[in-house]
């Protein structure tokens, strides 16, 4: 298709890149989403599948901010928890339906993202730690017995009135589809390219005309939105949970590890990370999670020392493009 709407403005957002985007969608993104959608027909443990889809969405959501901008939010779970509790409060305190709950989940995470966006002024490690502190602070607020009337404090929430496992599963698949589209777009549009340029050198990216503050804020809010939606769907699907489940730091840790392991800033890297590592996690068994913690701890160390760009770099190093 010739670029009529957008004159030669960008030698890059043009046909070859766009064609690549469609190819990624057709041969990688779409099949994955379809597989996630039909999986319950092939395998009986819906809760396990739901967890897989949730981690796929979270890993891609983290990929949006970490892979493309280099900001690593250890407190990513904060958005997930905000979404879960946004959903719960809407259903529990305002007696509205799950649709409204999901809308509030989305809004809560985006608002939280806006409140925390000044953290993006911090560089690497400080940002990572400050975001973790923010997630912990949010957990402390939500779980505070003083807020019993609103959040049920540490005693947990029950949302059995809206329980709908099939529908909420499909919503989670929809969120994964959204995250997948977003990553494909970032990988093949000039906005994603500019974000990666900013990751390498913010000063020079600004000099190239890219509004870096706006750019990184957009990426941050999109990433927050995905986690918030995933949190809302999680609340809906599991229906009974506690603050320490919704704000479990493991969500952050897993999302980080899966993304790093597979290869950030690719579409398939985080997917491979989730499938292999979360598969391993379930194979080892949740009854002894320490063994898995030990394995992924060692894995992280090995990755940083020997393969900092993840599995995908084994191929990209040889000049093979990974979608």
């Amino acid at each position, binding site marked *: 298709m010739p670029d009529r709407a957008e*004159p030669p403005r960008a*030698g890059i957002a043009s046909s070859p890149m766009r064609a690549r985007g469609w190819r990624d969608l057709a041969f990688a993104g779409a099949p994955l989403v379809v597989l996630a959608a039909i999986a319950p027909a092939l395998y009986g443990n819906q809760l396990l599948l739901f967890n897989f889809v949730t981690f796929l969405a979270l890993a891609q959501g983290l990929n949006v901010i970490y892979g493309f901008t280099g900001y690593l939010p250890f407190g990513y779970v904060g958005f997930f928890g905000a979404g879960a509790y946004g959903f719960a409060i809407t259903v529990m305190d305002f007696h509205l339906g799950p649709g409204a709950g999901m809308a509030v989940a989305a809004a809560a995470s985006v608002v939280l993202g806006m409140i925390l966006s000044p953290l993006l002024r911090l560089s690497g490690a400080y940002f990572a730690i400050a975001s973790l502190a923010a997630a912990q602070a949010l957990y402390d607020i939500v779980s505070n017995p003083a807020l019993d009337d609103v959040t049920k404090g540490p005693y947990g929430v029950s949302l059995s009135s809206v329980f709908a496992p099939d529908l909420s599963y499909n919503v989670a698949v929809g969120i994964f589809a959204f995250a997948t589209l977003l990553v494909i777009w970032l990988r093949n549009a000039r906005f994603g*390219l500019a974000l990666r340029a900013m990751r390498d050198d913010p000063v*020079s990216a*600004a*000099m*190239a*005309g*890219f509004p870096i*503050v706006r750019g990184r804020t957009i990426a941050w809010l999109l990433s927050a939105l995905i986690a918030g939606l995933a949190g809302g769907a999680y609340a809906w699907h599991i229906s009974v949970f506690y603050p320490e489940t919704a704000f479990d730091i493991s969500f952050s840790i897993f999302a980080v590890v899966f993304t790093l392991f597979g290869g950030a800033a690719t579409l398939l890297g985080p997917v491979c990370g989730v499938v292999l590592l979360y598969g391993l996690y379930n194979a080892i068994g949740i009854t002894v999670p320490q063994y898995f913690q030990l394995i992924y701890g060692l894995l992280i160390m090995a990755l940083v020392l020997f393969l900092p760009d993840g599995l995908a770099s084994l191929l990209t190093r040889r000049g093979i493009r990974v979608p």
Partner: protein
Amino acid sequence: MSRDAAPILEVTALVKRFGGFRALDGVSLSLHPGEVLGLVGPNGSGKTTCINVISGLYRPDGGSIHFAGHDIGGLASHALARLGINRTFQSPHCFLSLTVAENVAVAAAYGNGGEAADSDRVLAELDLARLADRPAGELNSAEQKRLDLARALATGPKLLLVDELAAGLNPTELGAMAERLRALAAGGMALLVVEHLMGFIDKVTDRVIVMNAGREIFEGRLAEATRDPTVVQVFLGRRHGG
């Protein structure tokens, strides 16, 4: 050279402080389209700070900067890039994980407010076309310097600030770079060049400003500067002494 036209850049009494230190202490200069102005002076005299303030990296603490009639003091770098100001860096700031072509593409896509920029032509002119698909991180330092310049040029600047582009280039590369900058000026671009190599300055500039301790101590042709007693004492004197 259109000396009679209005200047494209007009800097008046520019001040930049770092804590108590006045890195720029009332610098004024003006630059016309097609003109190449050299900025020379000993280390720490404020040359690079001057470029950093004009390019929006630092906010000015006093004075004014006008570009093509607009007051641009304190604008963000990306806005300046879109207005037509760009720069190279003393140590090249390339996007190391992006390919050479992508480096230029980002600037072409965002830097020129919708006007067409021909990335391929820029790459070819700077002798980078054959490296187009290589990651910038694999280039040697001379190639990275050219890429830094290519990134700046891809935004289609009307004013180019050049910070020590010549350092580290071999004599052949130096000559080529000097010709390149002259050609850009001949095309109507205004250039502000910071450089230590006097031979390069002599070849490239129409006029120089000599700076010391954040102030301007001389303005005129380089040949005259070398006969100015203050300049000799502050700048050349120190060089011989050192």
